[in-house]
């Protein structure tokens, strides 16, 4: 399964200036797997997005189809083909 992730401009320093990334999750289908796939593409980004136990960083909001995953199932949020994932600094919601 391929998932497209879009990053806010403020995160470009962690994504080699990319604003968009396509990750192939194979058979996996949850947000934690997507984060691992992103970290393989952009080493170190996992530490920006969450801690070792997959607690979402306070400074980050991750959305699946517009919904903040904090209010869904966190990193256990299921993903399906064509889902839209956006990652933005939480300050934007202020």
């Amino acid at each position, binding site marked *: 399964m391929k998932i497209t992730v879009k990053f*806010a401009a*403020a995160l470009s320093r962690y994504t080699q200036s990319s604003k968009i990334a396509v990750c192939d999750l194979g058979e996996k289908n949850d947000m934690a797997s997507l984060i691992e796939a992103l970290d393989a593409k952009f080493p170190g980004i996992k530490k920006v997005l969450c801690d070792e136990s997959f607690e979402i960083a306070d400074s980050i909001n991750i959305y699946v189809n517009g919904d903040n995953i904090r209010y869904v199932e966190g990193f256990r949020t299921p993903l399906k083909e064509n889902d839209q994932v956006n990652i933005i600094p939480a300050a934007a919601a202020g």
Partner: protein
Amino acid sequence: MIVNNPTSHFIFVFPKDHVNGEYNYINYKGKPLTNREYLQNWGKWLIFGSPEELGKLAEKLDPFIEAKKIPAAKYDREIIEEFELGECVMCVYCDLRQRDEIWEILASLGIEDKAWAYERETMERWLPGGHLLEKWIKGRGMSAEQAEQFRLYAKEKFRRMFEDEDAIFRGIEQ
């Protein structure tokens, strides 16, 4: 109606009636929200862009807001450097129960990136320990004592605003 007061960081788009004090845009199907409903349901679609891009979008939203199909919007006049976003943000406000129909309008205007934030999220970030309050305190170079006083002030302000859950929501004291 676009309300562009140069002394404000934000540029607002409100229905004219709201500006004239004859209408409150914070409602659902014409009924004002209680404090409880506000915390449960009120929120915003977040849109990123340059001030010019958001200004053009505001002009396109204005007729929808005047027709009360969208409650209201606001956007940054300029980038807030302290927040390190690198872009300005527009908030398009509405109740959770109408957010899908409002998203359809935004999508028809070319918006693609979908991010919904509840107002309660924003408030939590402006309470003691919240990411935004602490960043703001740090940016102002406050002493430890001043920072603590400010945290207590913020906490008390929010407590007073929402202590009666069934009262009609009267707005955020800025």
